[in-house]
């Protein structure tokens, strides 16, 4: 196995594009190294992107947020501005693994690992985040929800990787939230998760996005759940309608981490709770 630490994205692209065998990008490495140790993958080439300066950049403004592909999740939590603008995105990133893991892991890595239960992904999709993809054919800008195709599979082509995640301009009176259910308080994987991002106008929900994790092969947007919230102050009827839409959208599996029945029920519960939290953060009053 070759291990390379290029200092430019261009060099990283060349290395990855030239590799004929199995290649992997290493950002935090908190998934990659575990899979290598388990013997699940045996890469011929590992390209470490942490030495690429541009990928370590985090810039935060109301007009937009740029999260470099090598920025550790812990750094997101340290930005007060980011916590104020996108509390849901930050809390999602800061639920990955544990404090120690967050010192290394990145949201881009979390996305590209393509687990249906990835914590940061539902929050990023709800936020309307875009991925800046770079590869042998140049750069492209892709909605985050178009990256993951299924468990362990992404839409990235040979030689491509994600340089950064970009969050859109933040409208006033907006709030987001991410909640997940795990049997343990940390060091665990979401059995069900829900992200809600919404903006208010004159006290009622004007726009909303609801995304569920771990209830389908990929994180899924639930437009019906979002519609149930729009135009309301999250009264009980709206919340019940929203929870029902969440449950209806679930297509989970039965496995050691949870049953279909359990995941479906709790998806509704978390969707409702995340909506209330996002509403409150947006300054909403019931």
């Amino acid at each position, binding site marked *: 196995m070759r291990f390379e630490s290029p200092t430019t994205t261009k060099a990283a692209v060349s290395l990855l594009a030239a590799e004929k065998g199995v290649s992997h990008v290493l950002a935090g490495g908190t998934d990659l190294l575990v899979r290598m140790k388990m013997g699940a993958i045996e890469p011929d080439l590992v390209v470490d992107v942490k030495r690429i300066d541009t990928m370590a950049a985090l810039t935060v403004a109301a007009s937009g947020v740029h999260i470099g592909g090598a920025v550790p999740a812990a750094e997101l939590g340290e930005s007060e501005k980011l916590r104020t603008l996108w509390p849901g995105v930050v809390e999602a990133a800061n639920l990955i693994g544990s404090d120690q893991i967050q010192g290394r892991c990145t949201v881009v890595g979390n996305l590209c690992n393509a687990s249906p239960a990835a914590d940061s992904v539902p929050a990023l999709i709800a936020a309307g985040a875009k991925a800046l993809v770079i590869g042998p054919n140049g750069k492209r800008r892709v909605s985050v929800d178009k990256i993951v195709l299924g468990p362990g599979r992404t839409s990235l082509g040979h030689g491509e990787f994600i340089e950064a995640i970009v969050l859109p301009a933040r409208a006033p009176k907006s709030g987001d939230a991410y909640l997940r*259910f795990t049997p343990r308080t940390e060091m665990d994987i979401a059995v069900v998760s829900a992200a809600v991002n919404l903006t208010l106008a004159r006290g009622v929900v004007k726009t909303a996005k609801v995304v569920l994790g771990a209830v389908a092969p990929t994180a899924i947007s639930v437009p019906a759940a979002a519609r149930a919230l729009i135009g309301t102050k999250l009264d009980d009827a709206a919340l019940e309608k929203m929870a029902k839409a969440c449950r209806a959208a679930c297509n989970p599996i039965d*496995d050691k981490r*949870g049953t279909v029945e359990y995941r479906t029920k709790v998806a509704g519960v978390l969707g409702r709770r995340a909506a209330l939290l996002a509403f409150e953060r947006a300054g909403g009053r019931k």
Partner: protein
Amino acid sequence: MPYETAYTNQGFNLVGSRVNRPDGIDKVTGRAKYGADVNAAGQLVAKVLRSPHAHALIKKIDTSKAAKLPGVKAIVTGDDFPDHTGGNRSMMDILENCMARGRALYDGHAVAAVAAIDGETADKALKLIKVTYKKLPHVTDVDAAMAEGAPIIHDWVRTAGVQPAPTTASNVAQRSEFGHGDVEAGFAQADIVVEKTFKTEQTHQGYIEPHACLAQLGPDGSGELWVTTQGHFTFRNVCSTLLGLDVAKLKVTSSEIGGGFGGKTHVWTEPVALQLSRKANRPVKLVMTRDEVFRASGPTSSTSIDVKIGAKKNGRITAATAELRYQSGAFPGMWAMFGAMTSFACYDLKNVKSVGYDVLVNRPKVAAYRAPSAPMAAFGVESVMDMLAAELGMDAVEFRIKNAAKKGTKASYGPIYGPIGIGPTLQAVKDHPHMKRRLGKNQGRGMACGFWFNFGGQTCTDLNIGVDGSVNLTVGTVDVGGSRASLALIAAEELGIDYDQVRVTIGDTNSLGHNDTTEGSRGTFSSGMATIFAARNAIEVLKQRAAATWDIPVDQVVWEAGEARAKGKQNSNLPPLTLKEIAAKSPRTGGPIAGHNEVVADGAGVSFASHLVDVEVDPETGSTRVLRYTVIQDAGKAIHPDYVEGQFQGGAAQGIGWALNEEYIYGDDGCLQNPGFLDYRIPVCSDLPFIDTQILEIPNPNHPYGVRGVGETSIVPPLAAIGNAVSNAVGVRMNHVPMSPPRILKAIEDAAG
């Protein structure tokens, strides 16, 4: 000369103080050497090939390709382990568990092993070994294994303990029964009878350090083994028997241990590493992966238990019965017997009967796990105790106090109790400020009692005094829970010197006589006793040296406050001789000064605990938070209270994990689905509240200081205490452990209709 074992109410200078632990710096700096921390020149790395099937005939193992791989130095299969057991079936079970003999009995069962120049080569070699299996029907559930038509695990097993002796094979290896009185008559007298069935899933001890050893065995049949173990003498005896070696020729050294909790009382890979070493004639290192630890070491039983208790309206229990079905994995054990013995040990019962069934299934061979088998039995019994108290309209604590065993009670498992602590722990629960905490919405409180026998056993200890007066105490009981600090305190107490003057070492098997394994909470009890006696033995020598120095008869010398004092007016001109002074002169007064003791420490005092817990359950997700937890336990005498409290907290922490989330999950294929810490959920720090402790000291009459073992009892009550608390919080009786969120949510919804 035998020393007096009886308790005497002596005062203490050091015992009971909270001195610094002697192993702390080594452990926090990484200097401590664990099982995997030692290497030998020219060592090979061993890896084990394991069955991917729950039950299969091994038709053929082709190792030819692997053997040709450069760097592979030895390969072993079942054929490389000739039978040296002399017809001892339980030894053969251990051997067959270490390496399959014609049949793979569970997912993870070892079928071959390789020693190679490095780990990569060994991994490659494993992939080159071709095993031809024929899958056989399997069974992993304890009740299913007892059912008619279940696949039979061993055709040679006949149920023991049944008259007349059965003639056909069964998965029930043993039936055991305990009790006294007439339970039928007792139930007839009852005003209220409560009956319930319980299930508990299989859990693992979860020690952080995996099994690891460095083995060296030469063609001359002599060897050395460095290993993480709770009992290196036992490992030596077992490995010697299995491999046909002389016990004296195998030196076993115990490493520092990163947790054992009973799981390191048995051999798993050590005979395999030794045999590989013998074949390759080179040292062999074998370290289990976490996956292997889960699949192929010794977790505790999963169980299925029926409990029935009847009482009069005044709260007196008239009869109690339990039927306890424990799986022991693919080989017979004694686990149901322990369940049956402990189930009603807390209570004073006229009519009681408990029956245990030890059941074979296609799972790894069950090993001891901290008070083995008692937590599951307590879950059933203490849950029914709460249900019965509610039916009687009595407070759960009062109901238990009314029926608690006391001095003179005939225990349900046979003996008559001496002074015991169940009553005092219950009274302490009643009086504890925890009881006054107001419960909020979705919160519930629960309590439960627990019992463990404790054990003493064979112990051999040496105490050597250095020329500067510092003391080296060598013991053969592995320090799994802080015994070195306690033993140093005891030696210093007896000799009348400072704690820091005593250094405790765990001796290897060739430096001391046999010591039983550190199990049954025996470390501080038994080695503590042997240390007291070894110190008293050394004091005899010190007194002789002083007498010789003074040229007076030894009976005119006393040992007080760390010095020899000459008694009597005629000796008033003789200033005392300190231990240091006597030691300094020792080369000229007869040579080194030592004390020695070997003892079978009988009379380990039984131990009782009562636990109290508050929980909050999220009714929409079934998730439980433990809000407050209090452990009250009788320690006899707490030699080092920090360690005693640590044992109380540790048992409670493991019990909380077991109660709420930990479980072995088997698929329909009979394979373990969660052999890792991600999906086998032991609690992390943030899952646990501060665990409050209260030490009670009801002296054990059979130990000079009154010590009782403290390590195990603390894991007995938590399943039941949390079961009672959750049941109180959600208003539904929980009868299946772990009470994971899906199980709780389902129970809530089923109850709501």
